[in-house]
């Protein structure tokens, strides 16, 4: 038997095995244990839970509105929670799966079908019938965005619309007329080329282009499609467009980018906020965006940035009023009446309207919107007037809530167009791949 040297024991084989086993078992649990739900117990009286996503400003205003509700409903306590969008969606899905859906929850347009169809949301039809929740000041078309199979499961909390943030000073320099609600995709192409032809340089010395590349943006595609009379979804299980439609759109964007009229691929893939968008980095004159985030553009880039309509096809506008977010009641809420009262209070109380103002885009209640609008200034006023202009111009009715598979389709849309941008697929190949994937998602 060899003498063990004191203090010098080489690593035994068993230790390696044990470590390997521990490492292996984490393979299964580490990624999936990242999410957990916390649920509390009800205290005396009625306790409601209410959650939303959004920035600090929205959180502070919402808290204030909730405290007012508690004051007027003695015995009701509202426990609130909020987070950023991505984390919120995943947390809510896990909560809903565990039967721990909050009593009242802010919802994304894309969640409505999934949550209503999965039995996580309570039907609001009764509460609307007995006027616990009043909807008389809201547009009927707009209310449809919260329906699933004919029933109302969610109500819009804010009304948003797509638009086009552009630098009016650059447009003037290039001799491009101010974009009107009827300007067309051809006008847009010409504008981009003229701006590129100015030969301006970005701060890092690269060519300045006309706009960001909306090819990977499902919202831009939907606007383009609607302006040609199409739609994104024909039903809850079927796409509303063909391979040819998508190929045409991607070929159009791809060509403009190759010609240098719109932003380069590497700048498109890194854009995830106003600051990182091509216009925010001084690489382009315009950005397809939404009305709610628009006020951050002039703050960053100066007062020459204005908000214009998205281009049309022969005057037909594809933009539509979309719920920027909705509100619903958990299917297993123990206090559906109080939950409905809270929903009504948030949507229809004038004082709440003053507190929340435009923190969730235009309030859906017309009276409140008009009242709040009087206090608006600068870019906020501009987006409010923009919405009114678009309403006057005439928009096609909004579609019903997108099917449950839309979340996956939207990510696939970005990815497949990236394959086009980096030359990994032709527009037609990518379109076929997207449609295959979307069909799989919609059928399952």
């Amino acid at each position, binding site marked *: 038997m*060899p003498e*063990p*040297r004191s203090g*010098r*024991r*080489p*690593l*035994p*084989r068993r*230790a*390696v*095995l044990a*470590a*390997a086993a521990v*490492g*292996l*078992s*984490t*393979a*299964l*649990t*580490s*990624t*999936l*244990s990242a*999410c957990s739900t916390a649920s509390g117990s009800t205290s005396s009286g009625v306790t409601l839970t209410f959650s939303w996503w959004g920035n600090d400003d929205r959180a502070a205003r919402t808290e204030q509105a909730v405290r007012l509700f508690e004051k007027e409903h003695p015995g009701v306590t509202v426990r609130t929670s909020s987070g950023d969008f*991505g984390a919120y969606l*995943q947390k809510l*899905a*896990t909560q*809903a*799966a565990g039967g721990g859906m909050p009593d009242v929850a802010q919802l994304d347009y894309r969640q409505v079908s*999934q*949550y209503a*169809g*999965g*039995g*996580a949301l309570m039907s609001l039809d009764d509460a609307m019938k007995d006027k616990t929740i009043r909807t008389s000041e809201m547009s009927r078309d707009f209310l449809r965005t919260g329906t699933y199979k004919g029933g109302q499961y969610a109500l819009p909390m804010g009304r948003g619309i797509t638009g086009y943030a552009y630098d009016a000073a650059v447009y003037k320099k290039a001799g491009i007329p101010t974009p009107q609600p009827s300007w067309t995709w051809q006008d847009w192409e010409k504008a981009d080329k003229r701006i590129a032809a100015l030969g301006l340089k970005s701060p*890092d010395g690269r060519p300045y282009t006309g706009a960001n590349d909306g090819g990977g943006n499902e919202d831009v595609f939907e606007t383009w499609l609607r302006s040609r009379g199409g739609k994104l979804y024909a039903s809850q299980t079927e796409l509303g467009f063909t391979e040819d439609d998508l190929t045409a759109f991607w070929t159009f964007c791809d060509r403009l980018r190759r010609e240098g009229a719109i932003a380069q*691929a*590497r*700048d498109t*893939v*890194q854009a*995830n906020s106003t600051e990182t968008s091509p216009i925010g*980095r001084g690489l382009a004159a315009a950005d397809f965006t939404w009305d709610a985030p628009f006020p951050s553009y002039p703050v960053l880039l100066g007062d020459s940035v204005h908000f214009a309509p998205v281009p049309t096809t022969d005057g037909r506008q594809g933009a539509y009023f979309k719920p920027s977010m909705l509100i619903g009641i958990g299917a297993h809420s123990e206090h559906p009446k109080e939950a409905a009262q809270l929903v009504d209070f948030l949507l229809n109380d004038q004082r709440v309207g003053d507190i929340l103002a435009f923190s969730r885009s235009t309030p859906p209640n017309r009276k409140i919107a008009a009242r709040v609008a009087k206090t608006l200034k600068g870019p906020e006023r501009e987006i409010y007037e923009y919405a009114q202009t678009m309403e006057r111009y005439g928009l096609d009715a909004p579609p019903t809530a997108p099917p*449950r*598979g839309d*979340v*996956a389709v939207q*990510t696939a849309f*970005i*990815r497949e167009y*990236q*394959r086009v*941008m*980096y030359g*990994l697929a032709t527009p037609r190949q990518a379109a076929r791949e997207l449609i295959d994937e979307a069909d799989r*998602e919609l059928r*399952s």
Partner: protein
Amino acid sequence: MSTVSTRAPARPAPTTDRHPPSRRRRQVRERQWPAYVFLTPWMIGALVLTLVPMAVSLYLSFTDYNLFDPPHWVGLRNYTEMLTDDPRYWRSVGTTMLYVVVAVPLKLGLALAVATLLKNLDRGRAFYRSAFYAPSLLGASMSIALVWRALFNDGGTVSDILDSVGIHAGGWVGNPDLAVYVVVLLTVWQFGAPMVIFLAGLQQISPDLYEAAALDGAGRWRQFVSITVPMLSPVVFFNLVLEIINSFQVFTPAFVISGGKGGPADSTMFYTLYLYERGFTASHMGYAAAMAWMLLIAIAAITLILFRTSRSWVFYADEEGR
């Protein structure tokens, strides 16, 4: 010494002891129960937090489960779809393999090189050891991944430095050919943990061996190849197994650097990221569970192969003469 307890009692044949075997067994049992008492918290944890979720995940892997409707049994469909009808699955396997094959040797090579340098350092070894170890503590955090993202973005520090020397590559994060190496570099930078283990292993090697070799006229390289490498082989093996297992599970840095999307154009869509996307974005929990089990099987198989091959290249001093 632990060997004492396993040795048979050095007593002569029992004449007074009437029931030696059963008594010994009782003694053993009596000696063992406190161990189980102290292990209880860990065992409850293992059961509730690891074994039960594993069992549930195995069940879910044979179902179609979208978090909202009850799981629906589909047999092996998730597995067959994954292996035969999902090009993105195989792309994610390829990306992960590329990452493992590049990152693991680089990280271990760097760890061994730095450990060798530190071993020969006379002063300040503790300081440098801590300094090189620090990234391993920080590296797993979100904030470091965010800093990394900023470094390698367009207009970030790295592209500025490369610009100044005439290489206009732009940001790596936005380039599908380079994005994966941003994650590789972040991993390699955290070489501290294997380095500390290498360092401990190097210090275990008896200086007598080096002295004897030096007397025989062996140079430094010769000593490294003929003494350090074989004597250190169990440690190399240990680090290799751990790093491979960990690398297959790379998640956080890729998630943060690609903004959770595995982009651009799926170039950083690692296996776990795709698993996460299938489960939490597309709500195909059954498919995600099946992917997790395939990963477990694959890592177990690779580990098994490593153990098999290790017999021919790992030298265990304690197995000498067996």
